[in-house]
């Protein structure tokens, strides 16, 4: 029998918070009947608003699922509720396999055999290759034009004064950057456009907005200038291209040398932008001590990949994207999945963590944060911070500070998180039982 999921993994599977809430509301025995589990199938019937109950079936190994309800959410609240019940240990092995589950399983098995292998690159003709090269050249021209426009716009803004920034101006420019096929820059501009503009009068007009805006303008200017440089080292050039928004084909990444390890999931953050949801998952190699960032994307309202949940682990080959520092990676062959991964790590001191962060920034000045593990004692007084054994401290930021204090009680602990200008954002704590999510 496979390891039972933890509730966090079910939460990660929800397409949105509303579905998650609805799923948990149904995760009580009240509406359920004919529940059962025989690995890997989990099934049940949920009484909804209709006359007959909805039939639900989940293959927890894949995972894949089916529900007879008419919801357009995928997975729907009934699937999530059934998974919550199972994850909370309320469904044991046993039960009579429902006809719905048996039928779905049989259909799926039959259909699965006919599926083409994943990630098989299609063969392309010479004409197609030539057309592709022409499109790539055309895009580079557009990017060059777009970034030149960006740099002029930035200079105009600084000349006229940021106090005169027109609300929505960055949004307009972001749209032009999309046309110029510079999505990375467009995203940064949209982020900036969402920040509230503070008071624009007085000696320190704008406060945090002004500081953040100028810093981002400086980094965009740096990116624009870096694009025009032909003498950049290859790794830095790849980094610049990635921040501009050039993608590297998946097959190219998978063709790089794999890094095999048991990777612990030490952090996860979801964000939504217009029509796309993004999940950023930080991994830590328990043998190699390397960090990796795996990104998952999904259309808004659709579920994000939930195979990597904080606290869990995966023994797998990771393939890193080009550019430095080598952080972003794809998961290649997976050899084992661990609901909970136990490992030892000597956490850094604050000084060591900051030194690593600085080395990384020297390679990639556009990086917003960097994963690290610090051994220290959390405290709230006189200010929220993590203090290491030599007495150096870093400010605790983010929403998990109280949870970290509750979990560690001010005792020394090995804490994973992200280091950035605001301080340290804790995500997980390493205990004898493995990682605990904050």
């Amino acid at each position, binding site marked *: 029998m496979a390891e039972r999921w933890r*509730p966090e993994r079910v939460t990660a599977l929800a397409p949105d918070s509303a579905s998650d*809430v609805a799923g*948990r*509301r*149904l*995760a*009580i025995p*009240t*509406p359920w009947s004919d529940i059962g589990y025989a690995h890997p199938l989990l099934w049940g019937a949920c009484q909804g*608003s209709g*006359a007959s109950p909805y039939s639900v079936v989940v293959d927890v190994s894949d995972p894949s699922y089916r529900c007879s309800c008419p919801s357009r959410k995928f997975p729907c609240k009934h699937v999530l509720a059934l998974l919550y019940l199972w994850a*909370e240990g*309320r469904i044991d092995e046993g039960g009579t396999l429902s006809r719905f589950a048996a039928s779905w399983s049989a259909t799926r098995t039959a259909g699965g055999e006919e599926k083409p292998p994943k990630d098989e690159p299609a063969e392309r003709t010479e004409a197609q290759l030539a057309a592709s090269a022409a499109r790539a050249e055309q895009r580079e021209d557009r990017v060059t034009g777009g970034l030149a426009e960006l*740099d002029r716009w*930035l*200079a*105009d803004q*600084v*000349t*006229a*004064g*940021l106090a*005169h920034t027109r609300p929505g101006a960055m949004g307009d420019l972001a749209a032009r950057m999309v046309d110029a096929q510079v999505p990375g820059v467009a995203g940064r501009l949209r982020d900036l456009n969402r920040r509230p503009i503070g008071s*624009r009068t007085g000696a*320190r007009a*704008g406060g945090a907005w*002004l*500081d953040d805006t*100028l*810093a*981002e*303008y*400086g980094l965009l*200017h*740096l990116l624009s200038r870096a694009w025009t440089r032909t003498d950049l080292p290859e790794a830095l050039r790849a980094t610049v291209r990635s921040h501009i928004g050039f993608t590297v084909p998946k097959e190219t990444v998978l063709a790089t040398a794999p890094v095999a390890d048991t990777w612990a999931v030490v952090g996860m953050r979801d964000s939504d932008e217009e029509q796309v949801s993004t999940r950023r998952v930080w991994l830590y190699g328990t043998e190699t001590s390397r960090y990796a960032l795996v990104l998952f994307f999904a259309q808004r309202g659709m579920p994000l990949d939930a195979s990597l949940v904080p606290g869990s682990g995966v023994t797998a080959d990771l393939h890193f994207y080009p550019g430095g520092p080598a952080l972003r990676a794809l998961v290649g062959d997976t050899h084992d999945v661990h609901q909970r991964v136990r490992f030892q790590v000597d956490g850094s001191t604050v000084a060591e963590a*900051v030194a690593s962060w600085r080395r990384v*920034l020297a390679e990639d000045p556009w990086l917003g944060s960097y994963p690290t593990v610090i051994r220290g*004692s959390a*405290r709230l*007084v*006189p*200010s*929220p*911070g993590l*203090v290491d054994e030599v007495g150096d*401290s*870093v*400010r605790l930021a983010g929403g998990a500070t*109280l*949870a970290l*204090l*509750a*979990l560690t*009680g*001010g*005792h020394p602990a090995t804490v994973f998180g992200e*280091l*950035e*200008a605001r*301080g340290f954002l804790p995500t997980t704590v390493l205990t004898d039982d493995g990682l605990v999510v904050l």
Partner: protein
Amino acid sequence: MTFAALASIAAVGTGQRSSLPPTGALSAYLPGPDESDPQALAYALLDSAAALAVVRRATPATAPGDPVPPAPDDSLPEPPEHVVSLLGPLLADDAGAIRLASDRAYVLGEALGLVAQAGMRLPHRLLGAALARRELRASVRPVLGARGEWLLAQLQAAGLDGVTVATAGPSDADVWERGTSEERLAWFRHARTVDPDGARAAAVAVWKESPAPFRTELMSAVAVTAAPADEAFCEVGLDDRAEGVRFAAAEALSRLPDSAYVARMAARARASIAVVELEPGAIHRLLKRTTRSLRVTPYEPDEAAVRDGLSRKLSSAERLTRLVAAVPPSLWPALVSATAAELVTLHQDEPRWELVGGIGTATLRNADATTANVLVAAGVMDPRLVPLLSTEAVLAVMSRVPPTLLGTVVDRLPSPWPQAVATAVGQQLVGPNGHQVRPDVWTLFARAVPLRLAGGWAQRLRGLGQPDGRIVRNLLRDTTSVLTVRALIADELRPFLPETSWQDTQPGGRP
């Protein structure tokens, strides 16, 4: 040049300047200005901004200061994992299994109480959510454990957890000295329950300089917990210039059966109300009717009576109600040779409904359960008396009221209800006239069913399937969810609970 200085220049714009301040050591890494470019200054500023932005990012904020001692070890055990998995969403106030926030708050309060009774504490991972909700502090405090108390102390020391109404206690002298009016009143109400004399002394010390609304609230708080030692203080309150204080003082004194105030009011009642013997006629003998009759003389107040609250501005009916309400029911036999119940049933020269209201109020003030039950048996239908009634009397009242008024009766019953009452209410809800019952009775029922019956009722409600009507379906679903979660938590904790907290001594039926 610092980043802040650069930002100040950028805010105004380089168009107003001819040069930038020197960037210091950083200038070695920055490109030189292109003199031919009219916007050279702007680009130079952007170059500097880029470099300083990276420096800024590379210097994470620190948290200077001395570390505090870590938390002591916890000695209490954690609840079973299933209970923890249910407590988590409740503490986070996630809709989860229970849709209504008020239901979640009720179930959480009950669950925390059970965890405390079981001698357990919250797991460390739930402490953050538990302490983030200040309104729960009173019910969370007993299950915080050593780690939670340490964390709470940290929050308070950091100024992130102001002294709240729930945490204010008699030792928090600061609250009484410096708190807001609301905090001071909360302190006072709490202090009255644990140290009534000390609290009264605190009120006396600030009485003269306190505004009328504050004095009224203080006296009202005294009225709720009045004891013989408060009599002198309340007598002074009768002379207060604020009408609210005078009213509350009279209320307080009327709760003290041996007070001089009650004696004065009893003397007035004796002068105003009399039971007279009638000459029995043939019709009386034939119908076996009583020959006693109640005679009420309108009371005309003198100055002393006005001081005691029988104002001349009141109608005679209102004065009679106040007068009767101030007389403990147990005194009536000595005053008029008739019990309180007889007073409301005796023949009257004209109907005196205010007499019934006044006797009901007196019964409540004196928590006179005997009189309450007798009054109900005599046909008095005063919902205020319900909390004083025996289970049998409550059932009798319920049987007399139509389904539409069931809520008026049961919403005054303390939770949990006696088993027989819960069964009767449940049968009304699922019976043919269930649709006539007020929707809030479903909510009351879900919360007030004794824990050991909750699972059974959840099962029975589930068996009803999907009745017609969206509102009824929602009520049924919400009620079933609350009952289910209550039962799940109670069943898990039952092995650890003292038998007394589980057993209901009330006789009754089954779902």
